[in-house]
């Protein structure tokens, strides 16, 4: 079981896509605003698009914090695909739409995410070990509530156009 934090991302054509980050069902809903803002702070620096909304069970307007300030080049279909492993080795895939091109390395169809970039390290470590806000740790999981323990790969990915 898990609780789902979602982020709605908007691109330059106002197309939208929603990603979900699961948390164990021990997640304290009274901390929703802090946890959403904290994970927004590690996701937003990776995107050309804007974070339009986020929430868990109620939607929080992010227009006064992260946007929507989508760059015209932002495209929902241009994504980074992160493959995480949880306890037991099971996969947890997360696609980040409108991922900023300069965070990729390599060329052609073999581009991978630059795992040395500060913004990427912030995000990946937040997914693996959680984020601390005011001494409270918010730790993501997979859909079953299993702890994310490692990042196997992070590559360029072309996704569907969803709105």
């Amino acid at each position, binding site marked *: 079981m898990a609780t789902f934090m979602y982020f709605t991302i908007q691109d330059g054509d106002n197309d939208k896509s929603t990603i979900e980050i699961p948390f164990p069902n021990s997640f304290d809903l009274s901390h929703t605003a802090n946890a959403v803002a904290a994970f927004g702070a590690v996701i937003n620096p990776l995107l050309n698009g804007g974070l339009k909304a986020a929430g868990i069970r109620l939607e929080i307007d992010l227009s006064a914090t992260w946007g929507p300030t989508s760059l015209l080049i932002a495209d929902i279909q241009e994504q980074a695909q992160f493959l995480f492993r949880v306890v037991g080795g099971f996969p947890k895939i997360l696609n980040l739409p409108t991922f900023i091109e300069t965070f990729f390395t390599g060329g052609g169809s073999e581009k991978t995410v630059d795992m040395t970039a500060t913004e990427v390290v*912030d995000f990946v470590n937040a997914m693996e070990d959680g984020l601390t806000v005011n001494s409270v740790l918010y730790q993501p999981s997979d859909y079953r509530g299993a702890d994310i323990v490692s990042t196997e790969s992070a590559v360029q990915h072309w996704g569907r156009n969803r709105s």
Partner: protein
Amino acid sequence: MPRNLTVSEQVETLYNAVPTSGEIPYDTLATNVIATGNKDALNHLFPLKRQGRLNVRTEINPETGKPTTYVSRA
């Protein structure tokens, strides 16, 4: 022109760039390592964390709302 480091040399370059005590912000660590001309050494951050040699934690500054990742020796 400096030669390319072996993988094990890259690992030790990164590990040795972390102070023996206390934490260092990842941004500072990366700047220091890149200044030595061995940027590839930074790719060993997460493997060293998994091996238990480095501790890595990410914290949100409640005043600025911005994240900082800190690295220390385990």
